[in-house]
């Protein structure tokens, strides 16, 4: 204040301005303590406000990713339980044991019973693979609203892609395991036929021309189905709008990956449940008196001895199929473990972010209360000065 003459009003004016400033400081300090916030608007601290909202968005995003992670982990956990039932109890303990018993049964009288048991186990295994979680079929890939596996009657396809017929030439059908309506026992190639239904042969070699089996290709395509979710791997998109695969997680589980599909060079199924069915069907066709096979099965066996050989082969194939599915089962365990670790990482991230948000937004109670006390003290001191501001002047002392 540069002045050589201080008037009464000048003093009052200055006092008023300073008191208002003091009161404003008190109000600000009080507001901070009441709200617990370092700033109440962008204008008070633009940098901190910007950072705070950025951190909040990251926090929310991490929370969503954690929920996604846990949701997928739960699904996988349920998948594990269902598959465990299918593999250990049904495949290992039931179908495989039944097959072995059927092979080693001294008088074979129980073969039919064992066959029925195997068929029943196959149906139960199928139901196990049709398990649901949160309203979706777990092993249905990206078609979770529909049961992936069904038992349907379809023509029997031979290894060469032709339909098996009986002695009278009638198409043979059987109850087969289907994945989304397509029998899983599909050969890779089919014999090409013309519009009249005749086999097309190579004019040079005279051999039937083989073409890709569309159903087999369809099944193979289904293996590539994905359902991506964001579990905090830094989700990004390619310019065409598709996700960058390394930044998202595929939560789709395809039952065919675990159970396999198609037929081997003998025309026998590769699918575990289909093999169980085949074994059960073979055992079921044995005589319940002596366990021998008295009727031939076109394309499969002509006599009892061949039937027994077939049973032996199928049992071995079931063992191999079981080993393969065990590998997939282990893969599932690994995925579940990965999700668990990922979940822990995300939880840690959330804690860190939460702490950062608190550091940016929230006051230090000690500092804030101290500031409030000091502001209150200064204001009270200002009020006390007020009385003496309106001091006496010379006029009061004049006669």
């Amino acid at each position, binding site marked *: *204040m*540069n*002045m*050589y*003459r*201080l*008037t*009464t*009003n*000048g003093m009052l*004016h*200055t006092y008023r*301005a300073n008191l208002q400033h003091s009161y404003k400081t008190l109000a600000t300090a009080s507001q901070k303590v009441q709200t617990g*916030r370092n*700033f*109440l*608007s*962008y*204008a*008070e601290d*633009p940098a901190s*406000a*910007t950072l*705070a*909202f*950025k951190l*909040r*968005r990251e926090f*929310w*995003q991490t929370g*969503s990713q954690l*929920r*996604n992670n846990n*949701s*997928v982990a739960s699904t996988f956990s349920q998948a594990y339980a269902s598959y465990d039932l299918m593999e250990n109890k049904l495949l290992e303990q039931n179908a495989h044991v039944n097959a072995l018993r059927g092979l080693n049964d001294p008088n074979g009288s129980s073969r039919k019973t064992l066959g029925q048991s195997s068929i029943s186990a196959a149906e139960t295994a199928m139901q196990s693979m049709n398990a649901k979680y*949160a*309203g*979706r079929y777990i092993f249905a*890939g*990206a*078609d*979770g*609203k*529909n049961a992936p596996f069904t038992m349907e009657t379809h023509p029997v396809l031979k290894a060469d892609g032709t339909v098996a017929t009986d002695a009278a030439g009638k198409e043979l059908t059987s109850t087969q395991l289907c994945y989304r309506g397509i029998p899983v026992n599909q050969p890779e190639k089919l014999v090409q036929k013309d519009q009249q239904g005749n086999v097309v042969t190579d004019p040079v070699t005279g051999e039937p021309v083989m073409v890709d089996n569309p159903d087999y290709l369809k099944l193979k395509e289904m293996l590539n189905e*994905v*359902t*991506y*979710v*964001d579990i905090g791997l830094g*989700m*990004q*998109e390619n310019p065409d*709008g598709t*996700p960058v695969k390394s930044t*998202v997680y595929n939560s789709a589980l395809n039952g065919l990956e675990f159970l396999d599909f198609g037929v081997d060079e003998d025309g026998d199924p590769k699918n575990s449940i289909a093999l169980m069915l085949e074994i059960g069907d073979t055992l079921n066709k044995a005589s319940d008196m002596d366990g021998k096979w008295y009727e031939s099965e076109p394309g499969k066996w002509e006599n009892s001895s061949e039937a027994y050989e077939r049973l032996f082969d199928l049992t071995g194939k079931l063992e191999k199929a079981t080993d393969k599915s065990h590998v997939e089962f282990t893969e599932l365990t690994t995925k579940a473990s990965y999700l668990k670790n990922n979940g822990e990482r995300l939880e840690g991230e959330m804690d860190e972010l939460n702490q950062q948000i608190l550091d940016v*937004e929230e006051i230090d109670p000690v500092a804030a209360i101290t500031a409030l006390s000091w502001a209150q003290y200064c204001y009270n001191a200002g009020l006390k000065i007020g009385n003496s501001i309106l001091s006496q*002047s*010379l*006029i009061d002392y*004049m006669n």
Partner: protein
Amino acid sequence: MSNVSTFGAFTMAKLGIYASQKAMQVTGNNITNINTVGYTRQTLDLNSLYVGGADRYASKWDAKVGSGVLVSGVSQIRSPYLDIRYRTEYSNVGKAEKTLDGLNGLSQIFDEVGKGEDDEGVMESALQDMIERLTHYVTEGSGEGTFDTILKGSMSEVVNIFNIYAGKLEDLYNNTKESLQEDVKTVNSILSNIRSLNNAIRKAEIHGGNALELKDERNLEIDKLSKYIRINVIYEEEDIGAGCVVDKLTIRLNGGDESENGHDGILLVDGKYATQLKVPDVNVPEERPAPACTGMFDVTLDALRDVRGNPKMLVDGSSAICVSGPQQPLTAPGNLTIGGYTVPVTLLDKNALGQTPTEAEQLEHQLRQFKEAYNSDPANTQWRATLSMDKTGIVFTAADSTSETVTALTQDGELTVNGYSVVIRNAANKTLEEQLKEFQSVYNSDPNNEPNYVTISADKQQLIFTTPRNEPLTPGSEPPGTTLAIDGVKPVPDPDNTDVTLTDTDLYGALQSTREMLTEEGAFASKQDIVRDPSATAKRGIPYYQKIWDAMASKLAGALNEANSLEDANGDLKRYETGEKKGQYIVQPKNYYVTDKDGNYLGADGQPITLAPGADPDDPASYKEFKKDQDGDFVDANGNKLTPPYLDADGNDMRVLTDIRVVREQYKGGILFSNSGDNDDPTGITAKNLSIAHSWANGSIHVMQSRDDTELDQSTANSNLLHMLAIVRDNNFTYMLSDMDDDFAPGNAGGNTDVQYFKGSFGDMLTEIGSTLGKDTKVIQDRLVIASSSLVELEVDRDSVSGVDLNDEAIAMMQYNKSYSAACRFMTTIDEMLDKLINGTAL
């Protein structure tokens, strides 16, 4: 020996007493006005009186003594320098205050800090909720119809907030416009008050007063004005003749625009003349022509006018007049010819006193007849006739006249001629001449029309509007028989006094801040805007925030609409995707088109058909599928088995088809956001009109799970949902100026360059809005604090010079009390001395 006056000492004592009394009065005035706002302390001006000059009989040993004290006046103690500084700082305060008001208004809308539940913000929270729903949809809800509804509800909330905030921005704009209107009214009122006070002060000073209280009041008004407009106050002296000089106050604009087109220094108040502000859309008075402005809310200064509305006149007008020489009155009725124009005149019988008129009165009567006839002749458009001062001749002044033919009104209403309206009552009973006279009377008495005037033509059918031209005339152009003379003392309108439209940067202060809040577009400033204001891109007003808010809404809607829409080979929107369902199905034949497994469209009779033009084969409403029970038999909605031939409730034949085409509900994409809730039009979306599209609202379309044809039979495919999540949460969008402003469209006429002004996600954009606003607000807040502090200091400094201090006045009271006592004592002493001389000497 010097002159010694016997009783001169009494006079000396008397003067002393008087001076002390007056000084006490001044002190008392100061003390009683200590709390009067704007009061400047006064002081008595005293001069020592010396009577005398060269004394003929003076001796060099004479002691020349003064004759007492003379009170020469009362003056104020005020520092013009502090006034200048105070007013400059006040304009800074006004500017910062008004800017802060506007920014606070915007902050109430966009500042999310501390708002919402758990301080999560309102829009932030709504966006986050939308992201959460979408995430849930991606992970667990794909294929579930309910999730579409849930997501729609969440997006509706976001749409709602866009609409609400846009509405609030509009309200803020309208309120700010009203505030500008009030500010302009206030400024105009202040200018009028200053003008009135200038008049009053001038008159007081002419009559010998000093009008100190009026000057205080004027200073208060000037202080108020300085908050709205930065001004330059100049005190001049005006010689009004006869050695009389009065103060004249001039106020000029001081906005700081020193560019070529700037109007720094233009007059706002010039003594008894003042301007008025005119702003389009705010306060253009009807009687004034609309100003020719180039931008919104440009300010035009009206020509300087006095309290009666007359334009500023030049005192030393140099207009020419043509004077006819002294005329002789006609002694008999006849023709009077002056300046080449002849008018038949009559004689005056009696004067106003009823007596025989004198020659002068007769002449005046005849000259008046001449004047009326001359002025009412429509042919006389170049000159106006008036009587000379001595009433012996006619004075012709240059004039422009136009005549207008008038039709009488037949019922009460407004008679409008040449743009001026007069209400005529009882028109049915008035002749045209009476109506014309009424019009003439009102028009000529309206001070706003001066110096124009109207006369009635001789045939009483026309009105003649005359505008005097006050200009120098060249010799030879005067009417015949008249002499060219210079009317030097006649005030004439100042030809330089015209309406002036200010540039965008001429003003500085609260008014300018309000203008900028209504007009500045920040990054959206075009080249033309930058020419008007070089710093236009750095100023962000309500239009800027309206544009970026619209941009964000439009971008969000556009991105999600694009993600949910597929185009077919022709580039048209493809609403549906189809798949194939294997097996046998009963379908109703009415209004549907289905295909068999070979892809042929089938009619109601099951035979292949050709589709009618415009038919939509994928209409999902065109067929109805019947389910099968566990036995594989078709059943109706109640579970009753259906037996062939399959008939519907109306008896129509239903057909069994194998491997039919189906429409999957979850792939029915389309427009999600439109510009109105009752259509699906995605064009021209702004924050205010953003709506959930009609088809999505009524469930006709849904959010597409997948855009990929290979994922048709995947009921829980989610690739498009994931894409939408990326759009809303992660993807960076480029915001170009041309998105919301056609001034930047390619090939625009203004040569404006389209640039990117932001790139980021929607969350980033929301933060950017708040952060930009916050930074601007903080800067202005700091400026206001600094300016306010300076203002307080200057106010105290000013008060230290011109304020009343009780101690000072107390001392003055004591001083003048003592001087009064001393003067009285002196008088008593002189009295005693004279008494001694008179009664006690030589007796």
